[in-house]
């Protein structure tokens, strides 16, 4: 674990209980000593230095901190790091492979689904969970699925289009893969 929380745990070791956890983040396993009160969002951002996960509120309302835990979107500002013990976490940094972008990332870029970019990682991960479940959503289904994520810049219309375009891209990709397999 990197500096910030390690420093705390050693300097105030007397009454600060420390828990050892093991989490897999974007496919990489980490074993870490953390304070029980440490939020998962802070572990990801400061501890693991994956700053693509943002925090935008104090009340589990904005969704900027959304990550996938075992494929399910979770607001990481409202989960303790210790609760992620033994689980699989995907952050925005885990969306693209080394060589190519995820169709969701392409969708957001091609449909101008972002402006300041602050809500974007959370939006994309929420959208990914939706498309994993439902590869062919309607506009209303997309709007409903994204209703836990706030955006102040775009007015949502292009975000919805981005997700619908990504769905199309994913279906096309699946078709190709099926063709190749058969």
């Amino acid at each position, binding site marked *: 674990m990197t500096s*910030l929380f390690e420093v705390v745990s050693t300097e105030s070791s007397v009454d600060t209980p420390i828990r050892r956890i093991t989490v897999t983040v974007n496919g990489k396993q980490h074993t870490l000593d953390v304070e029980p009160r440490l939020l998962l969002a802070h572990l990801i951002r400061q501890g693991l230095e994956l700053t693509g996960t943002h925090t935008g509120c104090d009340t589990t309302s904005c969704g900027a901190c959304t990550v996938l835990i075992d494929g399910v979107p979770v607001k990481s500002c409202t989960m303790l790091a210790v609760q992620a013990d033994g689980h699989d976490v995907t952050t925005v940094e885990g969306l693209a492979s080394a060589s190519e972008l995820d169709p969701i990332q392409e969708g957001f870029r091609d449909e101008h689904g972002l402006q300041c970019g602050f809500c974007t990682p959370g939006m994309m991960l929420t959208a990914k969970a939706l498309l994993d479940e439902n590869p062919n959503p309607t506009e209303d289904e*997309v709007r409903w699925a*994204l209703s836990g994520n706030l955006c102040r810049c775009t007015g949502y219309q292009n975000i919805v289009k981005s997700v619908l375009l990504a769905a199309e891209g994913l279906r096309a990709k699946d078709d190709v893969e099926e063709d190749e397999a058969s």
Partner: protein
Amino acid sequence: MTIDEVKIGGLGARRSRVEDNRFIRGMGNYVDDITLPGMLHMEILRSPLAHARIKSIDTSAAMAIPGVQLVLTGELLASRNLAWMPTLSYDTQAVLATDKVRFQGQEVACVVADDPYIAKDACEAIVVDYEALPVIVNPTQAMADGAPIIRDDKENQHDNVVFDWEVGDKDGTDRAFAAADVVSELELHYPRSHPSPIETCGSIADFDRATSKLTVYMTTQAPHIIRAAVAMVAELPEHMIRIVSPDLGGGFGNKVPIYPGYVVSILASILLERPVKWIEDKTGNLISTGFGRDIYLRGQMALRNDGKILAVRMHTDSDHGAFFSDAQPSKFKIGLMHSAFACYDIPVAHLTARGVYTNKAPGGVAYRCSFRITEAMFFQERMVQVAADDLGIDQAEIRRLNFVQDDDFPHRTPFGFLTDSGQYAKCLDIGLEAIGYEDFLKQKEEARKNGRLLGIGISTMTEPLGAGNSREYDILGIKMFDSAELRVHMTGKAILRTGAKTQGQGHETTWAQIVAHELGIPADDVVVEEGDTDTAPFGMGTYASRSTPVAGAAVSMVSRKIRAKARKIAAHLLEVSEEDIEWELGRFYLRSSPESGVTIQECATAAYSNVPDGMEPGLENNAYYDPPNLTWPFGCYITTVEVDPLTGVWDVLNVVAVDDCGVRINPMIVEGQIMGGLAEAYAIANMQLITFDSEGNCVGSNYMDYLLPTAWETPGFELHEVVTPCPHHPIGAKGVGECATVGGPAAFVNAVLDALKGTGVRNIDMPLLPDRVYEALTEGHDVSGAPPTRTG
């Protein structure tokens, strides 16, 4: 061979955004993403009371917590003469409270600790003994006899008035009213709202003792203004201050003012000689940083029976909170409120304005707005609808009748602005056609028979953008120009820097498009940088939709300077005189034999390898642009709604926007700006409200109580365009970031009130919450969101 401008990403290209490459990978660089070696963390303790005397502050328990490095109070700041700072509106504001707290959420103490958790714990361990004082939460209370003087810290302040101001022709207006057939009246409250970018404010101050240089990473829309202000307040030499505004998670006016958190983090870093990071939490952001609006407007319109507007009278009472820090650069006290009615041909008008102090958070910032024009246009478009209803004239018709005509420009508005271009009636016609106006009116009549309430609302307006021209606009005396610096490297690639600061508008993409348009260098070959005062030329930042009107113009002008030099180099390379060559995009050629020519890239190479005798080598320059006038885009917004008579809930059926923002640099980005603006217009009309109880408690201090629309509530939008180039802007652009937020709210409100037509209801204050609409509908009276206000 002629270059295809759209292919190289020039004007009009729907070019994908350069900045998206990092944002979609989670590789943006926002302030909170930055970690410096040895960095400490700061938290602010805020006042729970809106008005109270501070009897004592005990920080001993906080200091005793392991990991706490420093606790700062107003007393400590006062000993260094830093307890108060100037605002950008020539008032003063407490950095940390000394004598009294004057609004809930005011900064009382700061803790700097090894990590943010410890800093938060320590804040809770600080004991403050307050003696509560009577609280003032609206202008009527502020002006009541015997009201406590909120700003008793100021020597000559004997009441709660911030300013009294007027503009226009009072006598002429009185005469016009005396001759009117009909006088219509309207009184309303534009409620307090918060811009609320998802990213809050924050800073990392890093004072380096070895070099005495202070670097501050900061969420600011205007880094150079901050540098100048820090130099003045902290008395540090300006060349030893570097302000860096990295990626911003939205701004909308919220990140223009100077907040105490920034100042204290700087002081803490100087004292501790370590980097100090302050990241505000959402509640802190919502209760203490620049809100928008909170203004009472009332007025009258003098009309002829046929609908011609003869004169307008207006009065505003604005609530500025405890400190006047609206950060607006005009010499007009109530901003550009008097741009109201600019799109109509009205002979005479008069406006009086009073600003007051209350025990609420300071601000009145231009929330996605060019300084009170949102309130101005809202009042204008509500007033026009009321007048149409009073006269029994169609709401589209009354607008058409009074519009400034296309061939009437330049046109002097009744308050003295000069509008210069537009095709107002054409925009309205496109909007009416798109929404299916005539059909909808029939549908509405039919629906009424079945007890269904449909309504249609129109809002048309021209708004002044740019906050520039140095005669009338400055901040702390600094004139409102903007700047660009362009360096073309020897291979023809380039770097452009401007004094603006993008917050989502996509400058990294669009500025390169202007260079491509002017020089024929592909946009992909131009990298754009902003936000670092050590490298960017001095500029006034991004707000008031001023980037394209001012900094964008500077980009054009600097490109033209480069082209002028390249032309000399081209003549040298072609061994002819300058008069013998012509320019086409990306290339100079011989007039006598057009196939012989040199490209801009070849000129760039020669600038470093083969310049004519007597010419300085290199191909770089800068431009400072002082616009001759404001720019005047036009917007027409039309919405249709259905109101449920059983609940007062209203649904949006359609939204049509017709925007004329002049020449569009990147239509995709322009459309994105308009849709974002429309969503905020809908939000303000429908749900977004920061309110206060009688004790000054902020109701709406978090996203559970301050309602922002999600993808689910937000309606879809249909966009149309008209292009009337700005006559004085080098590429004819006018700016667009705020138009829809400025003009949009009245379209929604007018639509709901249109659905209620026949009930006698003339006004419901925003937000049009279901209970307000239901009350209006069932009781047949107006519904005010705030107590009636009369301050004089």
